[in-house]
Every structure is written in C-alpha cells, then in structure tokens.
C-alpha cells in the first residue's frame, strides 16, 4: 500500500511543466561548474566545489527549495484540492499514507539534488585527486533531504499555508535570523547537513569548515527527522473528514 501511495504521488509530482522547473533548478549548479571549468578563477577546484557548488548552491539553495516544492506539492495540494479525501476514506492505515507521501517527496528531491551534485561535482573536480568531499556531501544530502522533506510534510499537514511557513523557515530562520544570532545554527537543518558533509568528506579547514560539531549534528538531524515524521503521522491520524469537500 505504501508503494501504491508512493507511485500515485510521484505521478502527481512529475507533471510536464513541473518537471521542467525541477530540471531547470537542478541544471543551475551544473552550469556554475561548467563556467568555473572554462574560466580561470583564482580559487582552487576543491574550494570551489566544497564552498560554492556543494554548500552555497546545493545545500543552501537547491536542497531546501526542491524539498519544499515537492513536500508541499505531495500533501498540501491534495489537501487544497480536496482529493486527499479519496485517499483517507480508503481502509489504509494513516501512517502508510504518510510513509508513501514522504518517500515520494524524499525520493524525488534526492534524484534532483544528487544528480545535480554528482554531475556538477564531477565537472568541477575533473583532474583532481581528492574526491572525498563529493562523497561526504552526497551522503549528507541524502540525510538532509529526508529531514527537510519530513519537516515540510509535517508543515503541509498542520497548515494550509505550509509553503509560506516553509519559506519563512528557510529564508527568515535559517538565513536572516542565523546571521544576527549565530546560536540559531544549532536549530538549522542546513547546518546539520553541512557539518555531516564535512565530517565524512573531511576537507581541511581552509577548504570548508562547518560550524557545528559532528556528533551533535548527527543526533540532532535524526531527532528532527523522527520527530517531524512522527508528528506528521499523529496529525494525519487525527485528520477529520468533513462533509463538504
């Protein structure tokens, strides 16, 4: 049943125009890597890959935007259109619906983000010896995208304005407020992802330096993912079907 919900959601998510938008977003980092390759920048390929390509473009921009887009589209648009009723009125346990939706949103995010990171990374790093940083970010992106997807699925179940709530989280909380109050980094999925990438990819501080400790980040990201997914299941279990749809 999870697989059925998963298939259904993937088909909803990947309409023609939407897929084009997603592919367009994913192409931007690759384009940046190509420009870097053909130009003669004074920063090293390793630093460019870690700091600009993987951290600034993918972890800070592509990852949250794609996850927000897909997670809110996976559940939010069904709630908005009222079609969630047809899913909820079937004798399927609610947690399976959440699991299917979350897996679909996560999987689609993962494909876009990883493809973009891998191709961009290969273009930028071609000819280098040290590829660990790319490996580190690939693993971190897999974990980070699950955490983001899970948070945004929860938001879509809590409010009809999940998109704005998610945007406020990504831009106002993780970006603006973090700039004024650096302590807020401790509650930011973006920072958890960056520090996991650093721990696995292990670049020197000169190349890329995350701000949080590894152990804390790993524990925090697991807690965030499990808690938001759990809350999403709890919320959907209490979702009442109304007479007027």
């Amino acid at each position, binding site marked *: 049943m999870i697989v059925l919900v998963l298939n259904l959601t993937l088909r909803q998510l990947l309409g023609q*125009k*939407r897929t084009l*938008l997603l592919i*367009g*977003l994913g192409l*931007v980092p690759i*384009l*940046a890597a190509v*420009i*870097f390759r*053909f*130009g*003669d*920048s*004074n*920063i090293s390929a390793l630093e460019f890959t870690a700091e*600009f390509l993987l951290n*600034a*473009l993918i972890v800070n*921009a592509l990852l949250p*935007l794609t996850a*927000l*887009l897909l997670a*809110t*589209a996976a559940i*939010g*648009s069904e709630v908005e259109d009222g079609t969630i009723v047809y899913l909820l009125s079937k004798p399927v346990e609610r947690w399976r619906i959440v699991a299917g939706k979350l897996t679909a949103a996560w999987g689609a995010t993962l494909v876009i983000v990883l493809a973009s990171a891998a191709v961009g990374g290969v273009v930028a790093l071609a000819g280098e010896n040290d590829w660990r940083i790319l490996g580190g970010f690939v693993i971190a992106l897999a974990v980070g995208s699950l955490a983001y997807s899970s948070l945004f699925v929860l938001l879509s179940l809590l*409010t*009809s*304005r999940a*998109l*704005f709530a998610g*945007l*406020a989280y990504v*831009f*106002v909380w993780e*970006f*603006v407020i973090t*700039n004024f109050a650096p302590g807020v980094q401790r509650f930011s999925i973006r920072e958890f992802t960056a520090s996991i990438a650093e721990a696995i990819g292990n670049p020197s501080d000169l190349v890329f330096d995350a701000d949080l400790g590894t152990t804390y980040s790993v524990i925090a990201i697991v807690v965030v993912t499990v808690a938001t997914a759990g809350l999403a299941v709890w919320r959907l279990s209490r979702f009442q079907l109304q007479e007027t749809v």
Partner: protein
Amino acid sequence: MTERAAGNIYDLGYRRYEGRRLGRWDAALSLYVHGLRAAFGLGRRTRSKIFPIGLALLAGLPALAYLMGAAFFEINVSDVIKAEDYFSTNIFFPQVALMLFVAAVGPELLGRDQRHSILSLYFSRSLSRLDYAASRYAAMATAILALTLIPQATLFLGNALVVDNFGGYFRDEWKQIGPIIGSSLLISVFFAAIGMVISAQSARRTFATIGVIAPFIFLPVLSGVLISSLDNLAGRLGVFLNPFFVIDGFTYWFFNATPDLSEEHPMMRAAFSGGWYFLFAIVITLVGIVLLLRHYRRKSL
C-alpha cells in the same frame, strides 16, 4: 404590463439594469484596488495577512530600529544608515523580505483567478485581457512600494524629527527626496515585472512561488561564479544576472553616490557606470510587461 403578459406564460418581473454603467476604466480600477488589498490579505482571514504584512515589517525593521535607537540615544542616524544603502547587500534582509514578498504576492494575484477559473468571467465583461494584466501588474508594483518607499520615507521623516531643527534638516537634505522616490519606484516596477511574468506561468501556488524565488536565489550565485571565473566582458556582464546588484547599481546612480565597496566586490570588478544598471532595469521591466500582456492576450481559457 398586462398587454405584454398576454404573450408570456410567466411574467417573473425581470427588469433590465438601468443604472449608470461604469465601464472599462472603472472595472480596471476596481481590479487594481482589489489586487492591492489582496496583496496584503486585506478582506481575507488573518492567516492570509501574516506573511505579507510580516514581510513588510521585516523590510521596515532597519528603519524602525534605527529610529528607536535615535529617539533614546544620542546618535546621528543619517551617519548610521544611509538611504542609498537601504536595499544594498550591506543590510541584506530588506532584500530577502522584498524577494519573498514578490514570490508570495505574484501567485496570489494571478494564480487564484486561474485556479478558480474566474478569468472567463472577467473577460466576458467590459474589461479587456490587457486591462486585466495591466491592473494586476499595477497592483503588484504598488504593493511593493509599501516595502520600498515606506521604510525610506519613515527613515527620512524620522531623521528630520530627531534633529532639533526640523526645517533645517529639510533644507539640507531635500535633494534626497527625488532619488528616494525614483529608486523605490524603479525597484518596485522592476521586481513586479520579474515576479508577475513568472507567476503567470503556473496556476499552482507552490510552483509559481518557487519559480519566482529561484532566479533571486540562483542568479546571484551564478553571477558571482561568472565574475570571479572570467576576466573578460562576458564575466563583467555577469553582474547584471544578479537582480540585487542591478538595484544596487541604479540606486547609487540615482543618489549620485559611490558605494563603499572593496576592490574585490563584483560590482567594482565589473566597473559599469550606474546608468547601465538603470538602463538594464528599464529594459527588463519593459520586456517583462510586454511578455505579461502577451501571455494574457494569447491565453486560452
């Protein structure tokens, strides 16, 4: 009455509307006013107001914060925060607020009408398709003014009130008024053009909103990579890819000010004079408006 009724089986007493017909311009004006209200969620429930009004406050926060500081402590506000720096990268969060506002309001103004299939109703009245698009665009541009002009005006008036000599401040600083209004207006029409063209492409709010945000997030990074990687004209032209550099550029040009930037800053490396940014913004705005009008002229319902 009785004679006419003879031919009718039922006379339901329908009457023609005989009042004054307000016509096309009034319809366009009503749509504009409605759009302006909808932009801030006025006339809707609280939930719809939180985000746009919150962003307007976020954009005004530096002005408010400095004025409060100036009211309680002895600081010369005009030294701390200059009008031309308000939307620059130095104080970055009015920019973030501006971007999010455009991304939230554009789909709100255009997407709803598409989603609920209201367009065919609008177009069957005296309002033409171009009137519709133009009214919506005008509403968007005016709404953005609330984030650009109001903080600047607050700052200016506040500065004048903080100093002892109110009239003296005006005499010294009145030359700022033109640039403040000019740059606020151009930022508004420029961002409204970008936002509305993209918002028109999708009826789904999620996709339209992310579609508007994406260029504001990705283009600056691409622009940075382009400028730092290529030392030729193509690299220098990369500065125009960043919409925030463009508004920086023409704002400094309006104020006839030199930005306080390091040699390494992309705008210094690109070394275009301010007039080019102005020209670029005007061209993009016009192209945007033409594309928007064309989109609505050709749109099949």
